[in-house]
């Protein structure tokens, strides 16, 4: 018996196929590393260089006016307020409109020709480059109303609208139809049903989807370049005078050769990254919370 086993030698062998498998596995794992490398490099730069001005001069960096290019020192207050106000206004415009649009698509339109067209166009709209949105608002708004923060808000709202519509429609789809039917059976109108039953059920998904859209809008630069102008001092009005925002400011400072301005650019980048990360994390937490509850 033992001679037979030895003669047959049934041990698993290293084959070319096996080696190939191992190589490919390593390569695939390597691609994860390749993706991680730039992310790590960028984050390290942002936190190290930005942190040195943001944390060292906390909270002055967040509140002081922006110094002239050559002057050393912290100060991004106007840009932070600008980003918050402009993005906030854009959210106030885009989210209600987007949710209403999604409500139409799912609750009223269904698969009608018009609804299918709108859905298709919303998908097309997500692919419109942000610079085109910025120029569009320049042509229809800024030329009539001059440079102001509100123009930027409009441009960002145009960017956010299709995203909010898509995300909200997905959330509305998840609400079980039985809830709606129960409401109709009790005599409620469609509007009442949507407002009091469907929306609350879909709310966590809609909120988290909207937060992601807000995070995306806060980081956009191109739409603001043509619509808000530029200023280094705090402007608390969205309707009068030039405004500035973190993204626009980072772009300006990235084009400077003076170390002081570049340093402020990194600090602004850190502030912006922290803002977008926070919004994203909150969105994810809301989603996780909601799914856990279900």
């Amino acid at each position, binding site marked *: 018996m033992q001679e037979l086993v030895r003669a047959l030698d049934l041990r698993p062998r290293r084959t070319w196929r096996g080696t190939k498998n191992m190589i490919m596995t390593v390569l695939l794992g390597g691609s994860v590393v390749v993706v991680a490398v730039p992310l790590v490099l960028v984050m390290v730069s942002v936190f190290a260089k930005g942190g040195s001005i943001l944390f060292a001069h906390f909270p002055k960096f967040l509140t002081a006016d922006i110094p002239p290019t050559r002057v050393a020192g912290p100060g991004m207050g106007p840009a932070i307020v600008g980003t918050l106000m402009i993005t*906030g*206004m854009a959210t106030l415009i885009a989210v209600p409109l987007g949710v209403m649009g999604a409500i139409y698509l799912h609750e009223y339109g269904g698969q009608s020709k018009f609804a299918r067209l709108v859905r298709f166009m919303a998908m097309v709209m997500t692919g419109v480059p942000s610079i085109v949105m910025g120029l569009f608002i320049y042509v229809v708004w800024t030329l009539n109303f001059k440079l102001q923060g509100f123009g930027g808000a409009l441009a960002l709202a145009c960017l956010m609208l299709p995203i909010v519509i898509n995300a909200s429609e997905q959330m509305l789809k998840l609400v079980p139809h039985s809830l709606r039917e129960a409401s109709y059976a009790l005599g409620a109108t469609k509007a009442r049903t949507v*407002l009091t039953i469907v929306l609350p059920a879909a709310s966590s998904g809609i909120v988290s989807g909207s937060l992601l859209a807000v995070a995306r809008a806060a980081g956009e630069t191109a739409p603001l370049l043509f619509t808000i102008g530029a200023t*280094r001092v705090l402007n608390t009005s969205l309707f*009068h*005078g030039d405004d500035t925002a973190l993204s626009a400011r980072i772009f300006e400072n990235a084009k400077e050769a003076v170390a002081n301005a570049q340093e402020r650019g990194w600090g602004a980048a850190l502030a912006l990254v922290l803002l977008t990360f926070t919004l994203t994390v909150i969105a994810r937490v809301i989603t996780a919370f909601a799914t856990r509850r279900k």
Partner: protein
Amino acid sequence: MKTWIAILASSTALFAASCKKGDDAGNAKMTEGKGAAKAEPTTGPVSLSASGSTFQKAFQEVAMDSFMKSHPDIKLTYGGGGSGKGRQDLADMVVDFAGSDSKFKDEDKAKIKGGDILYFPVVLGAVTVSYNVDGADKLNLSPDTLAKIFQGDITKWNDPAIVADNKDAKLPADAIVVAHRADGSGTTDIFTKYLDAASGGAWKLKSGSTVDWPKNTQAGQGNGGVAQIVSSTKGAIGYVDLSDAKAAKLHYANIKNKNGKFIEPTSESTSAAGEGIDVKDDLTFSAVDAKGDAAYPIAGQSWIIVYAKQADPKKGAALKQYLTYLLGDAQKDLPGLDFAPLPKSLQDKAVAQLAKIQ
């Protein structure tokens, strides 16, 4: 239902609040880059807006800061954007005064809407040839070599023409990347006028605020933009005013002047170039390729251009005050910013011209 009403109410309140607030926030602030906001004439305080040359921008920022401290009811803004933009904004009457390193072209004079204009020289400054090459701390460059580099005839740093003037330097075989201005620039005008005058026919691309540069060159916005290309690109060379070049910590070359000496751009060598200038009646002149052993050959200048007839007397008065300051006390700040003050005779002529502003 109630929550929706609450949300609606609070957002309307936010809307209304942001509409009302900041009525004065829009008026004249220190703006930079694009979009110099039009200043609205007010009864009490006065606002003046300007745009244009980035050559004198650093000076304007400092001068406006100190002037506003001593005259709290006058607000000033300087938008930059290049001499071309400044002239266009002034012609369209979008700003109250413009900074420009070059005159209006004859064909553009018809577009000037507000009547006669006056040129007030305010600074002299050096245009450096800045570069980014390993192994060359201080390069000597002659005008014909410069012309050939910037028009693309010389393409490598170890070209014999460059090596001839720099026996000590170890120049690599790297490609030269030429950086120039994308916007309409008085600095370009000064630099190309110099190449026209001094290169002995080697420069073929003519002079002006914009030039048809070879296609493989890189363009930057403003003096700061060119400075940034040079500082972040290996093998780059570009023309940047001294003030911006120093702020960006660039290396710049010594240029061979008319008397054959290689001169470093400094406030002193610029003043030396300013000595022999031939000033026309309208106070325009050119300081490039000046005579004199110590004169830096690519010396430039910048003017403030205003309308002789001022529609608003309050603005006209404020303008005169600011110009008096620029031509007087502010001149002392110039060497510290790496510019050169005006020669006394020119200064006097400019102050005398102030009377022409009505």
